[in-house]
């Protein structure tokens, strides 16, 4: 399943990236909006897309002015797809014919600008086709004027009606008697109606002839959409210093970031600690303190894998992914009001779907944040260990964050968030008077880095420290300490 829901796009920060892109054309904007990950059988297309972005990144850096002109020209295009669709069945209105003529004029100027850029870039799969004869159809007098009107050269009859109408109009201008003028006005209306009928006939004719060019126009629209998106993807890659991912057989990222969270942290005055991971097929478990960044790590992995498979560069120093056949994410507790399932119930349904995905042997990505957290801890730990074990031997990259002990022993790989391990809690706690201040100090003292754990290691015990730092009510805190 490669269909990513809006909620997951929003939560991982994918929507943030898509929203930050401002396409030049309505075609590009729609393509970006509808971007989905490439399917595993579309690997070749994905590679073409990534190569095209690489060319655009290089081009933008080396001949920025050419790209600026190209983008400026792109921004003149309006959406004519509805008119093209209508054209296949019905005659077009004057305004629709005008829009198509504008498109053709804009296309004529775009072609040389694209060729300049393409000479050094050599984009694959983007070929613009000139449409001069279509333009000639809409500009029979070859005036190359910006406007459109139903020229008399389309029809002799139209020409003669207009001549007749003009003669009446001349007489109206000369007539000083009001009543006589009114009579001429009535006469004029009859000729104007005849003009209208003849224009309709001509419009029908032009629309019919235009049909032959619709496939070429649609081809150009698709190319413009791809060109626009490629440039936008290159621009965002340049903005965040993103890299082209390798398509291989494992997930690996060095110093990966999540722009949404990174920008959010920056506003709060803290830095995003880049994450490096190497995820082979099988299960990986991430453990660590509360507030230590486990969810951040999972969302960052999910975001970057999705982006790479959608034909974007990765927000990392190096990146590598296999082309997954399916991606399943579990972030917040899912709740299904339709079936009135509890959060645990919904998690089990989700798990079942993930379990069926791995059966066909094609690569699957599974990411779950604190699976089974809502049930009793003894059973929860048992369940998580079992799940980790099953996915560990399947052809999937499965990443679980958990607080349950020993889950990591069932996985072939274990990462830990350092958290407050190296902080002097007693000293820190002395300074804190309220929760708000505590939050700041926690953020400052927390080590958000992700480290690979070799050998055995249990979950860190930081919950009590967090309670202290958030200035938890003393009577409760004392009670906890008694049984600790």
């Amino acid at each position, binding site marked *: 399943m490669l269909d990513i829901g809006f909620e997951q796009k929003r939560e991982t920060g994918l929507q943030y990236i898509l929203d930050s892109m401002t396409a030049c054309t309505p075609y590009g904007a729609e393509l970006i909006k509808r971007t989905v990950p490439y399917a595993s059988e579309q690997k070749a297309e994905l590679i073409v897309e990534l190569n095209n972005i690489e060319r655009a990144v290089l081009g933008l850096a080396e001949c920025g002015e050419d790209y600026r002109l190209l983008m400026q020209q792109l921004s003149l295009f309006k959406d004519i797809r509805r008119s093209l669709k209508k054209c296949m069945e019905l005659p077009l209105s004057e305004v629709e014919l005008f829009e198509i003529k504008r498109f053709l004029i804009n296309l004529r100027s775009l072609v040389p600008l694209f060729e300049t850029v393409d000479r050094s870039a050599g984009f694959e799969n983007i070929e613009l086709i000139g449409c001069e004869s279509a333009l000639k159809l809409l500009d029979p007098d070859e005036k190359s004027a910006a406007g459109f009107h139903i020229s008399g050269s389309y029809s002799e009859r139209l020409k003669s009606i207009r001549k007749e109408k003009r003669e009446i*109009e001349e007489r109206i201008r000369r007539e000083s008697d009001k009543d006589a003028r009114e009579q001429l006005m009535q006469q004029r209306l009859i000729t104007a109606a005849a003009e209208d009928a003849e224009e309709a006939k001509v419009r029908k004719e032009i629309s019919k002839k235009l049909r032959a060019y619709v496939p070429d126009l649609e081809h150009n629209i698709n190319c413009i959409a791809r060109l626009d998106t490629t440039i936008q993807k290159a621009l965002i890659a340049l903005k965040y210093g993103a890299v082209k991912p390798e398509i291989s057989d494992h997930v690996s990222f060095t110093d990966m970031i999540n722009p949404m969270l990174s920008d959010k942290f920056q506003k709060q005055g803290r830095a995003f600690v880049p994450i490096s991971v190497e995820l082979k097929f099988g299960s990986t478990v991430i453990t660590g303190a509360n507030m230590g960044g486990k969810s951040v790590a999972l969302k960052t992995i999910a975001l970057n894998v999705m982006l790479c498979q959608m034909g974007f560069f990765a927000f990392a120093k190096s990146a590598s992914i296999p082309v997954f056949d399916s991606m399943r994410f579990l972030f917040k507790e899912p709740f299904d009001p339709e079936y009135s399932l509890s959060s645990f119930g919904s998690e089990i349904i989700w798990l079942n779907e993930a379990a069926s995905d791995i059966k066909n042997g094609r690569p699957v990505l599974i990411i779950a944040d604190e699976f089974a957290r809502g049930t009793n801890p003894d059973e929860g730990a048992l369940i998580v260990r079992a799940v980790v074990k099953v996915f560990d031997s399947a052809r999937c990259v499965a990443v679980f964050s958990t607080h349950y002990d020993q889950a990591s022993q069932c996985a072939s790989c274990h990462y830990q968030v350092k958290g407050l391990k190296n902080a002097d809690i007693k000293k820190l706690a002395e300074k804190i008077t309220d929760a708000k201040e505590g939050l700041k100090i926690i953020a400052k003292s927390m080590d958000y880095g992700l480290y690979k754990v070799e050998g055995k290691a249990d979950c860190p015990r930081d919950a009590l420290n967090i309670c202290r730092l958030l200035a938890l009510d003393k009577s409760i805190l004392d009670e906890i300490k008694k049984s600790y």
Partner: protein
Amino acid sequence: MDYKTGRMLLNLLDGYPSVSILGMCKNAGKTTVLNRLISESAGSDALAITSIGRDGETADVVTGTKKPSIYIREGMMFATATGLLPQCDVTKEILFTTGFYTPMGEVVVLRALSDGNVQLAGPSMTEQLMKLKKVFLSFGAGRIFTDGAVSRKTLCDPGICDAAILCAGASCNKDMSEVIKDAAFFTSIFTLDEVREDEIPGGAKLFLRRSGSWEAAADSDAVDEVIRKEHFDHTRRLYMNGALTDSFLKKLFMAGEKGRGVEITVHDASKILLSRAVYEKFTRIKGRITVFRPFRLAAVAINPFSAYGHHFNKEAFLRQMQSAVSIPVINVEDLPDVGYRF
């Protein structure tokens, strides 16, 4: 007035390239004025017309009365909604599609390749009108007429129009004296005195004049408190950076003696959203409104015929209107016919 050339209305608008025709109500006689202006401006600058909302129907949508259509000449530009194009019988050249949508379709800009009738439905948002004006100018328009209504305060925004003609008709009220009082009220709002200031203050809603400069007032919502507590200059002046409303003035009335004789400056007439009653009360306590950006109301055009059946005595209407306002008053129907001598 220039009876020789027939340019009786147009001469009042000399030096104002962008003019709106403001109706005090429906059927106030705007189309008659617009047609007259089009006829009178034959041979002068390239003309462009549009309207705020819909206008130019042969029958009024609300009352069903027969209305004059707008008859334009070859070469003129006009902006209207695509839905009205079938009712425009000029030979058309499409010049530009604006991307502004009305209930009757997108607003498009056209050039008339022949004389003929048009119906207008232009944009209604300030920003759109400003953009449309730019489009007209880019296609070579030298003069723009906008058909509008006094309720569209946007049209007195100096960014959109420099001058206007006010249309007052018998359709506005059965009582002639009420029509005249309303016209006098709008006339005073649209002919407010200009205050010259090198730099218009910003960054706050309300300012007080103190020792020769504008100072932001602490609380813009409670003007009565401001006046009671803070110290004015002897000039007793305020600058309202935003809309001047009834509720603002009503609070001022609560300030008692201190609220008398105050001068309130606003940016331009489009910011004045006052009812006649409140404005009249304000002038009774010697209040005065001034503007940084003046607007020129060139004339009042009267229409003694009502779409609802009652008609005013045209001589009395003209005479009484003339004594109520300080600008020229014209009954277009009584002007010598200029026909369509384009």
